[in-house]
């Protein structure tokens, strides 16, 4: 009862101020001029915050906690300090996995951006007819489930797949026999997986850069031409600086794709042959559920989260830094 009474007096006191402020009937939020901080904002954020905190932030914290223990997922956990983190470079298989990640970043991120840059640079600034069509097709690999992409590429690389078929023709034309079981080959499995990433990334980079180039004022190119700049010079002084923001976005998105590379590896190679295509994202799963090293799996997961965060924060700053 007391609360109700107190509430009533509070409300009564607030009414004049409220009508003065906004003329709103009821005066639910007390006497407050417009634009004043309102605690009701918290009520709107609360449901999202609860789910987000409970099912994303909390697991991340729990993961960091798990990563400090040696635990097989069943028995009792033993305090391990930071030893799971030191394992990420002392364990040869894991060091290899992080090395593979570096190689894949080159394939997933550096190659697509370079290729797309050369293409955009090679194309003159004429109006492109059917741009919407090209954009839609080039971007298509981005929206297809990675598991489906993996199935398609397993066929491309298979013994009787299109690559080996073409190589077979070349062989019968007198060239050496270059046919391989690509995904089962210790030398070629990692680059083969990497090329899938290049394939996925090129469209994204091309679409980004094409859009960026269209925004560059024509006068800049005309000025460069009047100054006697050749195609390369023009590219370096006009196109490249103007596309810095697009480059940052492309590098970030594709690098994150390389870091979060679980689906493709699980579906196409399961890390094999041997350890040839093991990557950290796969090892999170493998160590936790196959070899019973839950703490280690979590340590790799936390490391990936830190990497993803650093890449996101870092690339933008690196590419755009001078202006920002």
């Amino acid at each position, binding site marked *: 009862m007391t609360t109700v009474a107190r509430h009533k007096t509070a409300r009564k006191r607030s009414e004049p101020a409220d009508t003065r402020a*906004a003329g709103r009937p009821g005066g*639910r939020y007390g006497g407050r001029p*417009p*634009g004043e*901080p*309102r605690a*009701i*904002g918290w*009520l*709107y954020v609360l449901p*999202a*915050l609860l*789910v*987000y905190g409970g*099912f*994303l932030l*909390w*697991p*991340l914290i729990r*993961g960091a906690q*798990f990563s400090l223990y040696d635990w097989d997922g069943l028995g009792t956990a033993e305090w391990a300090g930071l030893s799971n983190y030191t394992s990420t470079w002392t364990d040869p298989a894991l060091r290899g996995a992080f090395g593979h990640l570096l190689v894949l970043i080159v394939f997933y991120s550096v190659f697509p951006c370079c290729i797309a840059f050369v293409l955009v640079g*090679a*194309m*003159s600034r004429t109006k492109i007819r059917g741009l*919407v069509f090209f*954009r839609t*097709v*080039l*971007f*298509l690999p981005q*929206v*297809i*489930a990675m*598991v*489906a992409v993996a199935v*398609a590429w*397993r*066929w*491309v690389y*298979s013994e009787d797949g*299109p690559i080996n078929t073409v190589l077979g023709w070349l062989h019968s034309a007198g060239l050496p026999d270059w046919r391989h079981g690509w995904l089962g080959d210790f030398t070629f499995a990692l680059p083969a997986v990497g090329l899938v990433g290049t394939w996925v990334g*090129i*469209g*994204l980079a*091309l*679409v980004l850069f094409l859009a960026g180039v269209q925004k560059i004022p024509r006068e800049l190119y005309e000025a460069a031409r009047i100054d006697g700049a050749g195609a390369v010079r023009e590219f370096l002084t006009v196109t490249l600086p103007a596309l810095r923001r697009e480059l940052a*976005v492309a590098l970030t*998105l594709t690098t*994150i794709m390389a870091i*979060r590379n*679980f*689906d493709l590896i699980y579906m196409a190679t399961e890390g094999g042959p041997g350890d040839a295509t093991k990557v*950290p*994202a796969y090892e999170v799963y493998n160590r936790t*559920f196959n070899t019973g090293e839950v703490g280690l799996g*979590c340590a790799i*997961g*936390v490391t*990936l*989260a830190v990497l993803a965060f650093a890449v996101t924060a870092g690339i933008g700053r690196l590419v755009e830094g001078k202006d920002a």
Partner: protein
Amino acid sequence: MNPRGERIFNHALLAVFAVIAVFPMIGVVTQALKLPDDVDFSSFGTAWREGHFATYLRNSLIVTACTVVIAAILSIMAGYALGAMRFRGASALFLVFLAGLTIPTEAVVVPLYFDLRSMGLDNTYAGLILPQVAMSVAFGTFWMRAYFRSIPPSLLEAARIDGASSWTTLWRVLVPIGRPAILTMLLLTTMWTWNEFLLPLVIINSDEALRTAPLGLSFFQGTHKTDYSLLMAGALIIAAPIVIVYVFLQRQFIAGMLSGAIKE
């Protein structure tokens, strides 16, 4: 080169890369239909039956619809507060949501597995929906906040002077005019949820009847290792829903994914 030659060169270059982009997909279709020898849809029938894709597509539909709708409502509310209201702690809260954009599934999937299991939520729809709502809400709040910040303050004032509460202003005024931004958010969260693989793989670990479409494809691959015409049919079945939506609404998809939103 003359302008005409330049134009032809540009289009030829784009055409080559367009072909590269669809090449594996063409392979998928020709393999699934057993082209070029004949047109045979039997692979689809066999894959559909043996792969239980009817069940798996239904599961994916349920999980995706629930995730997207819940995440949209929560994101719109949170984005509204963070974008259009001023209150203590708002900027700190925004940073908290922003941090979530970069958290990869790999970093949370193991603790989620153990904690959801102890709550009895493994092998349930809820165990798939709640974590994916959380992931979508990080992006959605970021996205909707940007939209609500772009709204002229005069509009909010006008609604207030007309006597609309903040709740009514949101759902009757701002949401209807914000349909383009909301549509993009819905499309992206739909795609991410539909395509998610690691979470269902770990959470749906024993109940076959709850598998989502991508998870179903991975088990289908396990039983038909090199029967590519069947596998390709399965891949087409699970990819088709998103691809069809994408073809019609590609502009929203591309704009959303390139907006600098840092999430795969």
